């Protein structure tokens, strides 16, 4: 049984054009519109002060399910959700309040980051690889430590340069930070820095042959064909779509849903432009590691503590 639902989302300050998880969440809603006939809508937040207002507005307008995109909205959702028991709420990357109408959609970014790290470690010629993060927050640390553990697994000798831009918008600074790391010897840089990452990809493209960026969240391989080794895809769209489908079918589940490699919530892009550059032996290694994660035999670290305790498997 399906009914026609109305689904909406509130972006965090990154906005719908962040080419990252807000954009990805919106793709999920667009798919709900196309496949489930849902009526969809988004509201953008310019500042943190908009969160409560936006969530409340959508709930009042009678949307069946409202998504809060980003951990920044945890507190706001906790304020709004209890007032609208008939509206379902989902929060991406954050903890949902413990209510029957709320679900928390969590991604194991460290697992996908581990795989791209393993690829970078195996593929680097200089034995130096880089990481460019946006803000220095626990969410981005999951990307960083997962990546570092991946590099450690396939190339224990390799050095990982870690840098943060301190924001999500500054494309030019992202490019300069990447150029700095390239000058420090890196030949592959993974970014988890929102729009700053566009600059990282641009830097790899300008450096030319032998230099690569690794994209994040969406498949960013096409942004500089041949210069983006792969992208660590985080399928926020799938998660959002799944929840819409559950609501439409009347089988919403509260609590926490985790999307990892096993659930195909995170993973490598298809590498449309770069697959032939990478030897099959390396890809076989990556696939093997993916298997080990699915089987629970490798648990990639997500913060400094777990990284220190991490023992890389032999592959």
């Amino acid at each position, binding site marked *: 049984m399906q009914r026609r639902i109305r689904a909406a989302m509130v972006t965090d300050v990154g906005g719908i054009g962040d080419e990252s998880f807000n954009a990805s969440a919106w793709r999920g809603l667009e798919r709900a519109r196309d496949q489930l006939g849902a009526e969809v809508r988004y509201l953008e937040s310019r500042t943190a002060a908009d969160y409560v207002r936006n969530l409340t507005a959508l709930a009042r307008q009678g949307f069946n399910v409202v998504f809060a995109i980003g951990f920044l909205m945890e507190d706001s959702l906790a304020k709004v959700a209890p007032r609208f028991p008939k509206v379902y709420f989902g929060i991406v990357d954050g903890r949902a309040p413990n209510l029957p109408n709320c679900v928390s959609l969590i991604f194991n970014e460290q697992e996908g980051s581990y795989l791209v790290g393993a690829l970078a470690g195996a593929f680097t010629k200089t034995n130096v690889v*880089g990481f460019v993060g946006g803000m220095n927050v626990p969410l981005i640390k999951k990307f960083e430590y997962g990546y570092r553990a991946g590099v450690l697994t396939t190339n224990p000798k390799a050095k990982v*340069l870690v840098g943060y831009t301190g924001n999500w918008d500054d494309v*030019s*600074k992202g490019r300069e930070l990447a150029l700095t790391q390239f000058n*420090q010897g890196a030949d592959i840089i993974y970014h988890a820095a929102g*729009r700053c990452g*566009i600059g990282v990809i641009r830097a790899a493209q300008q450096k030319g042959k032998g230099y690569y960026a690794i994209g994040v969240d969406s498949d960013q391989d096409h942004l500089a064909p041949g210069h983006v080794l792969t992208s660590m895809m985080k399928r926020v769209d799938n998660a959002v779509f799944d929840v819409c489908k559950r609501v439409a079918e009347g089988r919403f589940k509260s609590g926490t849903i985790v999307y990892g490699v096993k659930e195909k919530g995170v993973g490598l892009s298809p590498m449309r432009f770069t697959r032939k550059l990478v030897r099959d032996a390396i890809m076989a290694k990556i696939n093997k590691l993916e298997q080990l994660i699915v089987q629970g035999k490798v648990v990639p670290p997500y913060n400094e503590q777990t990284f220190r305790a991490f023992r890389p498997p032999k592959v």
Partner: protein
Amino acid sequence: MGEVFDLQLINTAMRQSTPLILAALGGLMSERVGVVNIGLEGKILMGAFAGALGALFTGSPWIGLVCAILVGLTFALIHAVATQELRTDHIVSGVAINLLALGLSTYLFRQIIVPLEEQGKSSVVQGFAPIRVGWLSEVPILGALLTDQTWLVVFAFLLPIALWYLLRTTRWGLRVYAVGNDSVKSRTMGVPVKRLRYLGVLLSGAFAGMAGAFLTLASADQFRENMSAGRGFIALAALIFGRWHPIGAALAAFAFGFFEALQMRLQGQPLFGVQLPTDLLLMLPYLLTVIALMGFLGRMKPPSDLGN
């Protein structure tokens, strides 16, 4: 030590500080004639957008640059009319310009550029190529500093010297100082106050537009939402720290760019064997700029007639 401090660091710092220098000098031209200009941020952002759009549709970074300057001038004209004709508070007009620029550039970006991307077309523009250094690359220091730089960088570093000279020696320059210090007295002495103010504000728009064009035509080679990322406010701070002096403002802007380049490098390598924490390093440019400039600049004295 040698691994942290080298000419490559200055090379990066020059690019980091170029848009700041241009915008700070823009602010200077406006504030020297008594018009407060906190709308620099918005003009940089609009300049960046117009530059990208112009270059995207014509394939020429020069046309992009012209578009950026024209849009900067247009926004400056709004500020000039608002403050000079309608007597709007300078701060209010500046804030309005910043908000308008963010909204407008985001809206137009999504209406014009995003659909192109969705059709699979690239939004990367033909930017300015680095200058060919030729025999200059053999010159010690200078060669290393000029490698991979666009002419906009060179322009930004020559501009403060030119402005300093012009403001000190020409009739126009002396009148600018006069208007900024006492517009009433200047008017009674027959100085065309309004005309000078219009010129100053328009120059600020042109320079801020160029700063934006640097971001899209000589750095990122494409536009993204809110990519000015607060540079207009840093430029304003540089202007104040530089005591409304062209060389001072440029030095302050360069100091910020230098510490920015330094912290980027230190994030990836230890200093004297110590890896400094990321959050401290991210704060470093702001902190060190304040400390460095407090030391040798002394008391700030704005043009006396600023904001009237």
